[in-house]
């Protein structure tokens, strides 16, 4: 269908463009400008050029925050994806019991982050359930959240527990799109469960994997509530990941400029990661491309 006037498509795009412009591009432009100033919200801003970026690099804060965020995200994305896939494959069968277990696993995803964080603070306390269980089998308990060596991984574990249900549901939807006839044909050819997974399930599930990875990555990069409630970025900055670092700079250290500089770096980092993800996603569906080209 051709538009009646050449400007019609643009007019239809306008509401979304205005929304994106006002709530995304404009704040980004303001952050880019603020990143070149030293400003504390109250006194007049002072032009400092690229000093905020230099200070972030020189103090090692940028590299440290980046390393912690990427480490946390890698654990969360890989573990929640792997567990979600395992659960989806295991629970993708009829029956009330399986339906109940699927519902139970997914329920963690709908609970608020703050409630989850408080629950896990009780579990991870040196006198909590986890340490008590370890003591019961002769191992020492630990202050998981008070030790700089374990705090970040403890938070990653909590996030994995929370979002695995989400990955599982998406994988279940992906599994249900795979025609049963393919499994039957593979079984007739003598393929066992492992070979069926490797040669049927996995190739057809790759677009779903790419989707789950992208969305989990975004979720993990946005982690804030869990840090705010459980560790407040500590001990010793060991859980100060990107969004929390931005929050701390702007609201605790009174440095709007440095927080804005972190926002801009964060934006380009996410842009790069999303570009990589998109390439992977496009590469994950070669057959559909081939089909569309054949048409």
């Amino acid at each position, binding site marked *: 269908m051709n538009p009646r006037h050449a400007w019609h498509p643009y007019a239809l795009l306008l509401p979304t463009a205005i929304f994106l412009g006002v709530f995304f591009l404009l704040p980004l432009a303001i952050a880019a400008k603020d990143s070149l100033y030293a400003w504390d919200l109250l006194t007049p801003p002072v032009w400092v050029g690229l000093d905020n970026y230099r200070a972030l690099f020189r103090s090692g804060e940028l590299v440290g925050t980046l390393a912690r965020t990427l480490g946390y995200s890698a654990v969360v994305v890989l573990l929640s994806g792997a567990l979600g896939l395992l659960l989806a494959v295991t629970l993708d069968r009829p029956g009330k019991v399986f339906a109940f277990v699927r519902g139970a696993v997914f329920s963690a995803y709908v609970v608020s982050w703050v409630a989850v964080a408080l629950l896990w603070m009780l579990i991870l306390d040196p006198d909590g359930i986890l340490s008590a269980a370890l003591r019961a089998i002769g191992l020492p308990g630990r202050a998981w959240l*008070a*030790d700089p060596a374990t705090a970040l991984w403890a938070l990653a574990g909590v996030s994995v527990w929370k979002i695995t249900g989400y990955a599982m549901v998406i994988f279940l939807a992906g599994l249900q799109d795979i025609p049963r006839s393919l499994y039957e044909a593979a079984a007739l050819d003598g393929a066992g469960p492992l070979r069926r997974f490797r040669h049927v399930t996995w190739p057809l599930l790759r677009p779903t994997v790419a989707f789950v990875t992208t969305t989990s990555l975004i979720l993990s990069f946005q982690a804030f509530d869990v840090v705010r409630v459980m*560790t407040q970025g500590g*001990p010793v900055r060991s859980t100060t990941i990107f969004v929390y670092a931005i929050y701390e700079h702007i609201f*605790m*250290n009174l440095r709007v400029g440095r927080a804005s500089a972190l926002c801009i770096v964060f934006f380009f980092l996410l842009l790069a990661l999303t570009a990589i993800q998109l390439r992977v996603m496009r590469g994950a569906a070669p057959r559909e491309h081939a089909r569309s080209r054949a048409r």
Partner: protein
Amino acid sequence: MTLPRPRPTPADLAQPRPISAVRPARRAPSTSRRDALRALAAGIATALAATGTGCARRAADGRRVGSLWFAYGGKNREVLLGLVDRFHAAQSRYRIEPTYQGEYFECLAKLRTAIAARSAPALTHVVGEVVPYLAEAGVLEPLSRILPGGAEDLDIVPALGQQGTFLHGADRPLVCLPFNRSTPIAYYNRTLFQQMGLAPPTTWDALRTTAQALLVRRGADTVRWGFGCPVDWWFWAALVGQAGGNVVEPNGEVTLGGEAGVRALRFWQTLVHEDRTMKPPPGRDYNAWQAVNTDFLAGKVALIWTSTAFLRYLEDNAAKGSGAFEVGAAPLPRGVRASVPTGGTLFVMPRGAAPDAQEAAAAFLRWMMEPEQANHWATQTGYLPVSRGGLDLLERQGFYAAHPNDRVAVDQLAVAAAWPWSPALFRVQREAVQPRLEEAVLVPRDAEAALDEARRAAREP
């Protein structure tokens, strides 16, 4: 002649009206929609008027309303709200609307944003280190101009008010009045100490041996720790003073105590890593403070350092339950000398509130400075009485003889070390020092290197 119809006020529009009144016979749907939109707009306007702290408004009973943002939970919140109720009962001209805004740092974050957005409350309270920063930014009202009758006759305990605090600040106008002022003190499980024949330690060495005696281990686990203290700038400042140094020199130079600062930090490192008698608390900021209190009440730590602010809270809660015990309070031990910093918050009136709201807030502030209210607040919470007349009254009434725990902080005022208030003090605390203290104690890291780095960070603009 037809009289003009009176224009409906926003309040009228917000009122539900009979359907017949809002729906004329013709074009019913569009008029009804217009009325609904009007009502909605009026509702929003009314709501905005109600929440806008910068706007003048009156309570339903005609009183002038002033907002108060506060940062207490628990017992202290109850006492403050009780005082606000008393203020309302004591006069009929003003109403104070108190709003809880989270702990100190959260409240401060909201205050800064509200000031920038020109919707600041008429009255709030901030930690001492923040006052010079806010004063330098020019966002605080001079109180001597705003308080009814001026501020000259306020009889404030000298160590707790603004006097002598600002760096080079002899001629500074008065911008703050003390509210909940405190010093760090030691709390100990008196029941346990009596059973074990121990006395609260009075020197650093005695603290080490007492903590060792109190320690109970079962295999690799510690059942009871000898000592607990938030790894926080305030307690480190106490240690620096006790080691003979100043965090900030009288001329404003941030030395972080030099050698004394290193000795202070090494003392903590010794307790945590060498003696393994001090429990490093989880969490940061006031979460760590709360964790120390909880451990003490649960009997997991026998001796702690925390603010005198928690005196009533700890006494009341330790007396409950199956593991009930008696709480004792003691001054902090000496290093080469006795020294404590003062802490807590001071009342400030941010610029930008409506004159009526400021009038109400100023009336409340003056009322709070009177001996009766200042003493009620102090005796119900554990904070220091800020009125000199009030303090004398408590002595005469025998309050301190009956409550020796309350006396500890008051006596410690004799060795209170003031730090000069420079505008950078808050940033030095939050950004330069606090994270490095945690690093040095918890990782652990060399104390001297950590403080050298903190000094460099403190010089950064």
